[in-house]
């Protein structure tokens, strides 16, 4: 694995499967009475959030604490972060404080890449979402959720998503989740289809390893999972689509549409859901919808990423299971 996790495209198939397998071990910790591992004891991780995202920050923080890391939360929101040098200055301050890893969320595409590659800082950098570029741990937790549901937690170990058909629906243009998922799902062998109005598909999408369709109904019957993307109402005012009603008529997921999906197919959403426009309450509350599981899985996946990037010297889980042995063998040096 690379030293940083900036983009889902940085991961090989084996890296990705290793992370998913490690996350399965981490998930087991959540079932224990004491949900904590000593793995990152004495290590300091900083959550550097230039953009508000309580969900993602809490998820990372939970993962860090379950691995016994010391956690620093830095929220740059509200401080005057209009100029770029504050990213550099902040990074160097953290470096001086001896931070061992930085989890960064930033409104500007490429900010984590700059942080990792400009010589400002030595610590590993984990991208927790940058602009409209990437959100690799989101893609990993989505893949983890799919593998669990479509193959099963134990049967899934060592497996990828070869041949599975995954559909992403909504604002692809502005979605870092879509970009990360296309990269990762392709690496894992899945067949990805993007569905959106043409205005919400980026110019240049033709080189992406996926299909593009403007017609949701034709894609649904051959989908093993349908992931609904966030559509902001503001997009309507910018003429990306005429009205909310028309959007939901053509691209929203309701019970009738869900019935056209194969029985085993799941419905996913990175959250928070806008009920009504993208997804009806009926679908959101159905047992096919994995939104809550995705949240839980996010913690396991982020534990796995932190563990693997920070290269804990001990096995991830103290009482070794067969899976733990596998992890130890592959764990990279820090």
């Amino acid at each position, binding site marked *: 694995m690379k030293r940083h996790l900036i983009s889902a495209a940085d991961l090989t198939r084996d890296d990705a499967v290793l992370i998913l397998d490690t996350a399965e071990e981490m998930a087991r910790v959540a079932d224990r009475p004491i949900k904590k591992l000593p793995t990152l004891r004495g290590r300091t991780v900083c959550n550097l959030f230039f953009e508000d995202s309580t969900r993602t920050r809490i998820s990372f923080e939970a993962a860090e604490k379950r691995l016994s890391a010391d956690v620093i939360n830095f929220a740059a929101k509200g401080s005057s972060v*209009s*100029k*770029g*040098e504050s*990213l*550099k200055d902040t990074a160097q301050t953290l470096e001086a404080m001896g931070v061992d890893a930085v989890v960064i969320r*930033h*409104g*500007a*595409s*490429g*900010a984590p*890449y*700059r942080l990792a*590659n*400009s010589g400002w800082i030595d610590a590993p950098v984990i991208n927790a979402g*940058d*602009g*409209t*570029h*990437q959100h690799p741990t989101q893609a990993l937790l989505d893949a983890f959720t799919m593998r669990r549901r479509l193959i099963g937690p134990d049967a899934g170990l060592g497996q990828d998503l070869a041949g599975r058909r995954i559909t992403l629906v909504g604002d692809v243009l502005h979605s*870092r989740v879509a*970009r990360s998922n296309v990269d990762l799902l392709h690496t894992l062998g899945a067949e990805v289809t993007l569905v959106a109005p043409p205005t919400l598909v*980026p*110019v*240049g*999408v*033709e*080189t*992406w390893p996926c299909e593009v369709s403007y017609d949701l109904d034709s894609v649904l019957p051959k989908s093993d999972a349908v992931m609904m993307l966030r559509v902001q109402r503001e997009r309507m005012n910018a003429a990306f689509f005429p009205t909310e009603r028309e959007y939901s008529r053509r691209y929203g997921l309701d019970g009738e549409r869900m019935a056209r999906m194969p029985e085993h197919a799941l419905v996913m959403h990175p959250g928070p859901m806008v009920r009504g426009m993208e997804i009806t309450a009926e679908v959101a509350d159905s047992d096919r919808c994995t939104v809550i599981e995705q949240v839980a899985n996010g913690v396991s996946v982020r534990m796995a990423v932190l563990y693997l990037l920070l290269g804990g010297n001990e096995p991830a889980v103290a009482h070794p299971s067969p899976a733990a042995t596998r992890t130890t063998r592959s764990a990279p040096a820090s």
Partner: protein
Amino acid sequence: MSKILIRGAKVLGGEPQEVLIDGETIARVGTGIDAGDASVVEAGGKILLPGLVDLHTHLREPGREDSETVLTGTRAAASGGYTAVFAMANTFPVADTAGVVEQVYRLGQEHGYCDVQPIGAVTVGLEGKKLAELGAMHESAAGVTVFSDDGKCVDDAVIMRRALEYVKAFGGVVAQHAQEPRLTEGAQMNEGIVSAELGLGGWPAVAEESIIARDVLLAEHVGSRVHICHLSTAGSVEIVRWAKSRGIDVTAEVTPHHLLLTDEMVRTYNPVYKVNPPLRTERDVMALREALADGTIDIVATDHAPHPHEDKDCEWAAAAMGMVGLETALSVVQQTMVETGLLTWADVADRMSFAPARIGRAQGHGRPVSAGEPANLTLVDSAYRGEVDPAGFASRSRNTPYEGRELPGRVTHTFLRGRATLVDGKLA
């Protein structure tokens, strides 16, 4: 004044000759000229060109002297072989009055490294609403002939029409920064395969092309002269080619960086590659080179855009747009146009001196290298190979995309009206 004999230089790339400078003018050009009491510059094997003329330079003074001043900018120009530069109007205050353009012009004359010909703003404050006093700027000591809101597009069709018509009275030209503003809201880089992947806001080619199409039609309708700044797309080339074939009085420029770099560079997220218009694709680059070769694009202009380190040492979205170019322009042109066989050195003299001086009506510049002409000359060691080291730049800013890149050719001497401003690669 003293006499200088340049010995063995290939004038415009031709056979080696001697060029005798006497005072401010060229006294003789030929073979076997006796040095007499002249000091001698041994130029065996080097290329002698007319002093280069840049129709598109940002000198930043007044207002952003931390980026560049008229002094540092003209020293950079002399280092790059330029004897005249046209200074863009987007300063603080904006060069939209006779007072500001005269100040910039005089600073150029006082420093003496390079003639500075100010460009006047088309509209007050570059706001695109009200015509600036174009006539007053023309009649001032600066004698402004080129008008541009560069940095911004004159996007209102009526204002553009009126400006084109108005400057006809004194032979002026409007230089358009072609960028449809609504199509480029939030734009960070060329819209295409790379922007889709990087998640950076797209600057579509059509935003440039649609304005050029409109402006050449306006120029035709009112019978005026229009100049298109920094063409960057294959489609723009097609439109200008069509306009010229129709007899429309349009000229166009291309920057060195658009002849060499592509949007693939943006994958580094290094803001040194952030420029407006953005770096385009390989296909665009090839079309621009061809168009410069066949004369569809008339000139090379640098769009020299200095920025201090802190405006580039940050994340992409927060970074300023632009790159410095005066000191590397000729090297890039040599690599992309001469060494590819697309242009001869005589063609380079045309694209970088004769034609820009003609478009901007620069007095005494872009003249033939022959007896009786002003001694504005540039001597180039075209055999030189070396890595670009911004530490040696005369420009106050260092935002070059070529750091560490090997580029051919080096300007060794520059003469402004017979006085050396650059000697053996060092500023005089």
